[in-house]
Structure formats: structure tokens, C-alpha cells
């Protein structure tokens, strides 16, 4: 479902170059991306998300060449099809848990915030045991709880692709395992695709594929 071909990308005024000849990730696959820092792992995620545009090559997701879409089309695609989970959660401190979960529906016109969505959010929160925290602000939550909120936000719209950048980086071992279980369960239940950047080698056994950027010589 995700195909990267002959990708060449570099940042302005930087010596960094990312070069991917070919990368294919199938629907429903759980792929881990590992490698030293600075090898372009997050850059690759951003290219897949359409946040960055390659100088050369194509990024195809669900048969759509993302890098050739208009900005608004790319944005709309991203918000409907891709869910993001970040290492530092990236919750808005001034919104409560429920508002954070519903954030995508407030910041893009292509998604409508309906009563049904609200109910779904509440159900999703309940399914990962944060339903009693809905009206609290992130500062009142533990790291594990915050990451679960971020996951709810990412999964509410039932994306076909989840991009997780070190989702367990700030969590203790028990929470790490819990978070990965949630993601894996979602992928299994909804035939979604998961691409996770991680430095935590203990989690690799749960993935279908491991992309080692150092061994594959991707990114300089």
C-alpha cells in the first residue's frame, strides 16, 4: 500500500541527503524503522505523510502519488488517512483530553465534528481506559496516559496508516508494552499499516518488518 520509488531529498543549507531507491510496505504490515540518529528516519515519515516533498521520486499511498497532490489535497489526505503518534505526545496543554482527541476535527474543514464522532471518541477513550480523564488537562496526566490520549487522537478517524515516531521513548517498560499493544491491536483489527521509528530494540519482536537505515544505507 505504501511505495517509495527513487526518492531523493535534502534540506536547504544542509549536507544531509536522503536517498531511497525503493521501499514497499504492504497493507496491514507492522514495520519498525531503526538506525542511528540523523539517518533520516523521521524525514522518511514526513515524506510519507506529505509534510515534506522529495526533490525526486514518488511517494504512493493507496495508489495516490502524494507528492504530486496540491497542498490542500495532501493535507486532507493526511488528516483522513494518517494518524500520528509522537515521542513527546504533542498534546495541546490548554485543551482537555476530549478536546485533544477531537482536535483533527476542529482544525480541518474536510472533517466534521458530529455527535457520532463525539460518541466514538468517548468509546475509544473507554477502550484504552482513559474515559475518566476526559475533562482533565494533559498536565494532570501521567506520561502513559498522555500517550494514550495521543493515540486516541491518531486513531479516532480510523486512519489506514499510522506513523509513530518513537511512541514509547518517554515511557516506562509497562507503559511501553501497553502502548504497543494498543497500536498492534488497532492494526490487526482494522487492517491498517503501522510504521514506527524506534530505538527500543526490545519491541522489535512484535513487528513484521524491521528497516535498519544503517544497514540499508538509507540517508546520509
Amino acid at each position: 500500500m505504501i511505495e517509495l520509488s527513487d526518492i531523493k531529498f535534502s534540506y536547504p543549507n544542509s549536507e544531509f541527503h536522503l536517498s531511497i531507491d525503493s521501499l514497499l510496505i504492504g497493507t496491514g504490515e507492522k514495520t519498525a524503522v531503526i538506525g542511528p540518529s540523523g539517518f533520516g528516519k523521521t524525514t522518511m515519515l514526513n515524506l510519507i505523510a506529505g509534510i515534506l516533498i522529495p526533490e525526486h521520486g514518488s511517494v504512493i499511498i493507496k495508489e495516490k502519488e502524494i507528492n504530486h497532490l496540491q497542498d490542500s489535497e495532501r493535507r486532507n489526505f493526511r488528516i483522513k488517512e494518517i494518524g500520528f503518534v509522537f515521542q513527546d505526545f504533542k498534546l495541546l496543554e490548554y485543551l482537555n483530553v476530549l478536546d485533544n482527541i477531537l482536535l483533527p476535527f476542529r482544525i480541518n474543514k474536510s472533517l466534521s465534528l458530529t455527535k457520532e464522532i463525539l460518541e466514538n471518541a468517548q468509546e475509544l477513550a473507554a477502550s484504552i481506559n482513559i474515559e475518566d480523564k476526559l475533562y482533565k488537562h494533559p498536565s494532570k496526566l501521567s506520561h502513559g496516559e498522555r500517550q494514550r490520549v495521543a493515540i486516541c487522537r491518531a486513531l479516532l478517524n480510523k486512519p489506514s496508516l499510522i506513523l509513530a515516531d518513537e511512541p514509547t521513548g518517554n515511557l516506562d517498560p509497562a507503559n511501553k508494552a501497553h502502548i504497543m499493544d494498543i497500536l498492534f491491536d488497532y492494526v490487526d483489527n482494522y487492517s491498517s499499516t503501522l510504521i514506527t521509528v524506534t530505538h527500543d530494540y526490545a519491541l522489535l519482536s512484535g513487528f513484521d518488518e524491521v528497516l535498519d537505515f544503517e544497514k540499508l544505507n538509507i540517508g546520509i
Partner: protein
Amino acid sequence: MKQSLYIAFKYLLFHKIRTLILVASIGIIIFLPNGLQKLIEESESQMMARADSTPLVIGTKGSSTDLVINSLYFRQEKIENMTMKTNGELKETGLGYPIPLLSTFKARGFSIAGTNLDYFNFRKLIISKGRKFSFVGECIIGSRVAEKLDITVSDSLISSPENYFDFAGVYPLKMEVVGVLQETNTPDDYTIFTDLKTNWIIMGLGHGHQDLSKTLDQSVILNRDSSNVTANAKLFMYNEITKQNLESFHFHGSPENYPITSIIFVPKDIKSGTILRGKFEAREILNQIVVPSKVVETLLQSIFRIKQIFNTVFVLVGFATLLILGLIVTLSLRLRKDEIRTMFTIGSSKAKIFEILGLELMILVLSSFLFALALYFVTGYFVNDFINYFII
């Protein structure tokens, strides 16, 4: 737009203190020049209304401004007294009627204005509680006096002791409040009114004491002969006028020589007023006569100049405040870079993010305007204080 507004409100509400500070500071900057303008305009309007409603004021020669301020606002500027003889002379002209005023004393911080009942008819003052003073020793208080001192009919006020002649002293007199005036939004609200005679009693020109011709206490008698009894300083003067001792109150000296601070003259018509002014110019009456509206106009012109200075200062302060606010907004945006990036990553457009931030600013500015508007409306209540503290 609705969702953006929601997020914007949430941000501002979460940072309550910061929001309140910003709203307050912007609001105050917007309010200050407008509020000052309103204060000055209303003060001008009130002062001119007061001055226009007072046809002529007569007093001893000296500062016409002090004379007008004493007569219209009962601010006890140092003006020389004149005597009731002038009052009599003015009455005899038949050109109108004089209203003598004596404003020298205070009670609990408020000026006491001695006058007669003509003043109340002239100013169309209405009693909201109680009645007008009937006997000496009674007083009527303005609405704000009643409010600030929390007193009403049947309560009492004691005049503040002062050394009037520097050697005799004046006698604090306990006065009964018999009436409270309806609010007028004029200096009358802040004044205690008594009969002139009551003021003269405070001055010591009149007093009450035991009957010296009948007293058995010889220690109060300095000298006695067939026609006169002279009392010494030991004789106790009543410091309150009651039904029982009212009869004993009397005055020494000729009433013609009793002091007053000024006279409001109400001419029969414009021609009579002009004739009277002519008499003063011809030195038929040796005092000064002023038209209050002209004096107040001159006074207000100085205020106008000060207003210009204030406005310039406000513009500069406003400009500086806006610069600081701009800096705060810029720094705030920098601090929120991560938040903005998150929204962009999730799928928001730059336009949407600008919309949210723009709405935050708009809510702040609108709230500031509303705050400034509220302050503006409240300003009206302080006009009298403004006049009292800053103009006169």
C-alpha cells in the same frame, strides 16, 4: 470559524491571568484618552451648568476664581469675608434678591454652607427625607454626605473645631440632621447646609448660656452693675441647641456687621442684572461682582490646555504599550511553535492556524474594547470627584 473560535477561547481561558492582564492593559490604554475626554467634557458641562445657573456672585475684592469656587462649590478658599450690610444694600436695590453664603467651616471633612431657605428654592433642591431646617442648630445634608457618613435624619454632626480669630477659638456645635437632599449631581450633594445664624453661632457671634442676671454662680461673673453683667471665660457655652436651651441663644453686636463669604444675587431680569453690575462699576457698592460663567470659562480653558498635554502623553504611552504587546505576541508565537507544528503535522493548513491565532488576538482586542467601554460608562460616577480633586 466556529471551531477556530472554540480553540481560541480555550487557549485564552486556560491562560486566564495572562489574558486578563492583556485585556486590562489594552483596555486601559484605549480607555485613558477617551475616559479623560469624557471626564473633562462632563466636568466642563457640569461646571458650566452650575455657573450658568448662578447669575451673579458678589464678594470682597480679590481673586474672582476663588470667590466663584467658594460660592459655587463650597471649597473653602481663603477669601476675605464681607458683612451682612452688603446683603441689605443689595436687597434694597429692588433689582432682585440676594442669597448670602457663609462657607468657612467643615464637619467630618464636608463643607458647611450657611445660607437661608432662598438657596433651596433657587437651586430647586428637593428634600428626599425629613424637612428643611426650621430652628438654628439644625442642618440639611447632601445625598453623598448621607451616603459617605452613613447618617440620616435625627443623627447629628459636630462642626470641626478651628481657631478662627486665632485667640478666641470657635465652638464645635452639635447640629441635628433634619433633612437629606435628593441627589443632584452637583456640589450640593457633598455639602452640609445650615442657616446663616447657625454658622454665626459656630463662629461665636451667637451663643447660649445660663441667664447671667439670675445665676447664683458668682464665679462666672467678672463684673456687675445696674445696666450690665460681664461674664468671664469660665461661663459654659452650650455646644448644642435644644428645645430647652433655644431661648437662651442670642447674638452680640450688630447683625449688619456679621460676616458672610459671598452673595449670590438673583436679578429680576437681565436688565436688572446689568443695572446692578453698573452700580458696582460706578463704585456705588464697594465689592466685586462677577458673572460665574465667565470665570469658569476662563478656568476651563486652562484645563483644556492640560488635556492636550495628557493626550500627547497617552498617545506615546499607547504606542509604547502596543510595541510591548507586539513583542509579547511575537514571543508567544515563538513559544507556541511546537503547538503550531503539531497542528500542521496533523493536517491543519497555515491559513487555519492563522485563523485561530488571529481569532485569539481579536477576542483579546474585543474584550479590551468592552472593558474600556465599561470603564467609560463608569467614569460618569467620578465626575464630581474629578472636579473636586483636579479642577477646583
